[in-house]
């Protein structure tokens, strides 16, 4: 019978926390840039200009058809070399963190843009007509009338996507970047306690994600109220 030994965890907490900060940093960056870029993509997709709409659709379909792991690998393998070339960085500079953030942000934007597009379309057309009828122009109608309502409807879906993203950041493991999962794995590997550390990491992911999903439930009730 396997004997659990949790003793290596308390001492490793500061290191694990460093990992958690990496995870949160990647998640937060990807959420912020993903939503901003995703909003732009959604606006392009819904715009009357064919070229913009087509470009946005192509982008979204491309990223939604490629496994996230592959996108990340590309970013880890190709982007650093491009950056080195373009910005004249010293070869071997550690741009893994930047690559990870960029990869996630661009990938998530594709998903966010679809959520945002649906959210914008969920706002009744009469709302825009009412704004126009008051003399409000397209831009302000979007900003003052449509987007606030759209975002209200979208909050649960955006949060759900953020929860998925938070879990998916563990894929930076392929670049040996020490996010929370990577840190836990390293500690386990060092102390020969991989099972305990992975169980602990799993528990932490569970608590965070489950709490967040309760929050989603709360927002869902609020939105439908």
């Amino acid at each position, binding site marked *: 019978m396997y004997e659990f030994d949790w003793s290596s965890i308390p001492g490793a907490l500061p290191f694990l926390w460093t990992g958690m900060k990496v995870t949160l940093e990647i998640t937060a960056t990807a959420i912020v840039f993903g939503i901003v870029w995703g909003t732009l993509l959604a606006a392009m997709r819904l715009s009357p200009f064919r070229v913009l709409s087509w470009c946005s659709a192509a982008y979204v379909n491309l990223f939604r058809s490629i496994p996230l792991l592959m996108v990340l690998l590309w970013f880890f393998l190709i982007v650093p070399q491009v950056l080195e070339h373009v910005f004249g960085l010293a070869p071997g500079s550690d741009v893994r963190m930047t690559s990870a953030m960029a990869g996630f942000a661009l990938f998530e934007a594709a998903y966010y843009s679809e959520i945002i597009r649906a959210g914008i379309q969920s706002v*009744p057309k*009469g*709302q825009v*007509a*009412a*704004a*126009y*009828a*008051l*003399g*409000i*122009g397209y831009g*302000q109608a979007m900003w*003052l*009338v449509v987007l*606030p*309502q759209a975002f*209200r409807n979208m909050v649960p879906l955006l949060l759900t996507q953020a929860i998925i993203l938070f879990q998916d950041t563990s894929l930076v493991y392929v670049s040996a970047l020490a996010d929370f999962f990577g840190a836990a794995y390293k500690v386990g590997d060092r102390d020969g306690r991989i099972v305990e550390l992975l169980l602990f990491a799993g528990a932490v992911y569970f608590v965070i994600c489950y709490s967040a999903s309760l929050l989603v439930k709360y927002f869902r009730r609020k939105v439908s109220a």
Partner: protein
Amino acid sequence: MSMISIRNVSKHYGSFQVLTDCSVEVNKGEVIVVCGPSGSGKSTLINCVNGLEPFQAGEIVVNEVSVGDPKTKLSNLRARVGMVFQHFELFPHMTIAENLTIAQEKVLARPHDQALEKGMKLLDRVGLKAHAHKHPGELSGGQQQRVAIARALAMDPICMLFDEPTSALDPEMINEVLDVMVELAQEGMTMMVVTHEMGFARKVAHRVVFMDKGAIVEDAPKDAFFGTPRSERAQQFLAKILSH
């Protein structure tokens, strides 16, 4: 003096003809009721007046500004033309007070205090001053529509368009909205009203325009319209809606 002049306007969606050669004159201070069976193009016609819907042929001139002219800045025109919708279309994420002030501030660039004062005055006028802090969802349909009228009036409109303002309301709320509209008409507001409320038409309309299948079948002074409608279609329509 003509406030709204609709001249030979035609509109089609693809091959479907929605409006055929429609002409209506609305003079300053006149109240025109537009009625007709559903799908006859009444709402489309009124939506063309402030350019919410484009039209392919003819001309609409509002206060000497051509609506169809690509050089016309539609938002400037719309800021002066009040519109009230069937489904109120208050902004649900804003309070009643914000609904009343937002366009005053963003479009007319009125200072907030001034906009709020104006909004509250109009809210008081439609009897809803106590509800200023609430959101539209907390109000009844009739109350929301009265707010929508106040919101349009806050822009100091030169004329008002009403697109079936009472048809989404429960019967007991129709009158509170009509009362506001009657008062407005009696004050001399130029109004173009799409409605089936013939009581309203009898009370305040100067002329009644009857539409069928996208065309204007009859355009007559109120008394002539209700007394002796010339077209058979208008006679049938009146018989149907007035028989109860």
